[in-house]
C-alpha cells in the first residue's frame, strides 16, 4: 500500500470520528434545544443510554456468543446501586457512577463463575434465572428499594460542585459518558482480545486447544460488559431522577437482546443502530396511535427476515474497522489490529 492511501485512510477515519462527535455533541443537542421540547431531549437521553447497554451486551452475546437473557438485571443493579448510595449515603455522582458499574461488574463475575461452563441455551436459561432473581428482589425488598413504588433521586447530577440541572446539560453528561464507553467497547471488539472472543464463539474447544484460557476470557468479557451496563444504569438513575423495578424486568432484557440482534450480532456499530431504531421508532410511530407497537413489531420481524445478519453485520463492521482505523491492513508487513 502506498503512503498516499495510508494518509487518505487515516484522514477519512479522523473525519468520520469528528463527524460522529459533531453529530452527537453538536447537531443533535442543537436541533433538540431549537425545537425546545423537553420530551425529545428525554428520548435522546434514553437512546444514548440504550446505545451503551446494547453495545456492552453485544460484547458477550454478539462477539463472545454467550446468549444472555438477563442483561436488564445488571442495568438494574447499576441503577439501584447508584440510587441507594446517593440517597442513603449522599455519595456524589462522580462516585456513584463508577460504583454502579463496579457493583454490576462484580455481580457479573459472580454470575459468570458458575455459568461459564454452560453454553448456548443452557447459559441463556441460567441468565434468565438471574434476571428474574434481581427483578423480584428489587420488587419485593420494599424496605431497601421501596419495591414497586420505585426510587426517587432528588439530588441533580453534580460534578465538582457544578450542578447539571437543565436537560441540555444532562444530555451532555450522558453523551460524553456514552462516547467514552463506546470507544472502550470498540477497542475491546476490534483488537486481538476481540479476536479471541470471536474464536470462543466460533469453537470454544478449538480456541482452548490453541492456548486460549476460555473460562478466564469469558469472565473478563462478562465483567467488562456488565460494568458498562451498570454504568449506563447509574447514569439512568441520576439523569431520570426516578427508577422502578419495571425498567429492569425480563421484557427489558429481551428489548436489549433485540437491539443487538436487529443491529447485527457481533457488530458494535450495528448494536448502536439497533438501539437507536428500537428507541426512536416507537416515538416516530406515535402518530399511528394504538397501532404503534404493532408497527414496531412488524419492523423488527421484517428486519430479521430480510437482514438476518443485522442492519450492519459483523463482517462489514470489522471490515470498516480495519479499513478505516487500521490503515496498514493490506500491507505485507502490516498489523492485524492496531
Amino acid at each position: 500500500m502506498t503512503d498516499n492511501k495510508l494518509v487518505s485512510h487515516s484522514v477519512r477515519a479522523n473525519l468520520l470520528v469528528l463527524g460522529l462527535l459533531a453529530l452527537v455533541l453538536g447537531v443533535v443537542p442543537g436541533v433538540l434545544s431549537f425545537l425546545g421540547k423537553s420530551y425529545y431531549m428525554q428520548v435522546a437521553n434514553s437512546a444514548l443510554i440504550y446505545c451503551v447497554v446494547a453495545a456492552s451486551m453485544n460484547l458477550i452475546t454478539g462477539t463472545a456468543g454467550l446468549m444472555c437473557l438477563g442483561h436488564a438485571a445488571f442495568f438494574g443493579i447499576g441503577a439501584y446501586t447508584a440510587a441507594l448510595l446517593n440517597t442513603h449515603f449522599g455519595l456524589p455522582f462522580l462516585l456513584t457512577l463508577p460504583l454502579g458499574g463496579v457493583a454490576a461488574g462484580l455481580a457479573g463475575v459472580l454470575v459468570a463463575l458458575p455459568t461459564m461452563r454452560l453454553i448456548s441455551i443452557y447459559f441463556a436459561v441460567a441468565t434468565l434465572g438471574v434476571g428474574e432473581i434481581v427483578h423480584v428482589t428489587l420488587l419485593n425488598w420494599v424496605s431497601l428499594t421501596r419495591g414497586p413504588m420505585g426510587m426517587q433521586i432528588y439530588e441533580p447530577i453534580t460534578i465538582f460542585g457544578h450542578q447539571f440541572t437543565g436537560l441540555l446539560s444532562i444530555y451532555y453528561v450522558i453523551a460524553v459518558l456514552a462516547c467514552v464507553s463506546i470507544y472502550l467497547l470498540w477497542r475491546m471488539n476490534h483488537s486481538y482480545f476481540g479476536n479471541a472472543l470471536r474464536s470462543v464463539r466460533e469453537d470454544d474447544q478449538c480456541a482452548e486447544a490453541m492456548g486460549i484460557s476460555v473460562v478466564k476470557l469469558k469472565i473478563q468479557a462478562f465483567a467488562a460488559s456488565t460494568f458498562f451496563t451498570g454504568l449506563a444504569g447509574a447514569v439512568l438513575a441520576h439523569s431520570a431522577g426516578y427508577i422502578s423495578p419495571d425498567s429492569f424486568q425480563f421484557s427489558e432484557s429481551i428489548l436489549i437482546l433485540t437491539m443487538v440482534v436487529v443491529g447485527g450480532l457481533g457488530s458494535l456499530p450495528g448494536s448502536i443502530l439497533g438501539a437507536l431504531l428500537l428507541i426512536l421508532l416507537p416515538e416516530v410511530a406515535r402518530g399511528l396511535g394504538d397501532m404503534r407497537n404493532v408497527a414496531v413489531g412488524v419492523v423488527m420481524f421484517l428486519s430479521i427476515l430480510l437482514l438476518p445478519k443485522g442492519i450492519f453485520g459483523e463482517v462489514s463492521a470489522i471490515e470498516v474497522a480495519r479499513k478505516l482505523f487500521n490503515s496498514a491492513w493490506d500491507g505485507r508487513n502490516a498489523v492485524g489490529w492496531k
Partner: protein
Amino acid sequence: MPETILETKGLTRRFGGLTAVDAVDMVMRPGELVGLIGPNGAGKSTFFNCLTGFYPPSEGEVRFLDKPITGLKPFQVAKMGIGRTFQNLRIMPNMTVFDNVSIGAIGSLGHSLRRALWPFNCLTDNEISQRTWDILARVGLDSLSSELAANLSYGKRKYLEIARALATDPKLLILDEPAAGLNEQETEQLADFIQKLNREGLPILLVEHDMGLVMGICQRVMVLALGKKIADDTPEAVQQHPLVLEAYLGGEECQY
C-alpha cells in the same frame, strides 16, 4: 536440548467398563516424524485427546520436554508447546483467514483486556501480527488473508488449520487425520508439506487412519489396536508385523 519430546508411561483411559487406551508407552525424540495408525476404534483419538489434555488419563503419565503434563488443561498443554489440528476440520467459519491464524498466536503470546484498551501499538500485538503473516506466507495463504474462512475450499481449510496450529509456535505438532477427505494429488502435496515442516526441525506426530501417507513419510510407525500398542518400528518392519496384519486384515483368531 531435551532427550525426549514426548513420552507416555502406561497411559490408560477407561470409559466405564471399556478400556479405550490400555497402558501405552511411547517415546518421541527431537526431530522425529512419527506415525500413529490403527484400525477404526483402536483408540487413536482417545490417545490423542489424553496427550492434549482433552481427557485426563485414568492412569499413567505423559511427559512433554521432560516435564509432566498429565492432567493439565488443553490450553495449558497448548501453551507449553503442543500444537494440534482436529480430525473433522474445526476452523472458525465467520472469521477471516488472518483472524483464524491469529488465534494460534494469541493463544501462545497471550491476550489481555488491558492491552485491548491501550490505544497505541504494543509489542505483543505487533508480534502476533508479524507471526500470523509469517505463517500465512509459509503455508501459502497470504493472498487469501482477508477472505472469510467459510469461503475456502476444503483443501485450503486443511492448510488453514495447520497454519493456526503452527502459529502457536509448537515444539511438537500433532496432526489428526490430515489426509482425510483429500484426493491423491492433494494428499501428496500435504505429505511434501509435512515433510518440509519436519525437515525444518519440528517434531510431528501424525495420527492417521489410512496407511498410505504414514508409510510414505514417517520415520517410525506406532500401531494401536483395541487400545494396546502392538507395534512400534520402521514402516517396512511394521508392514510385515504379524499382529499388524492381523489387526488390519483380520486373523483366524483375535486374542486381544
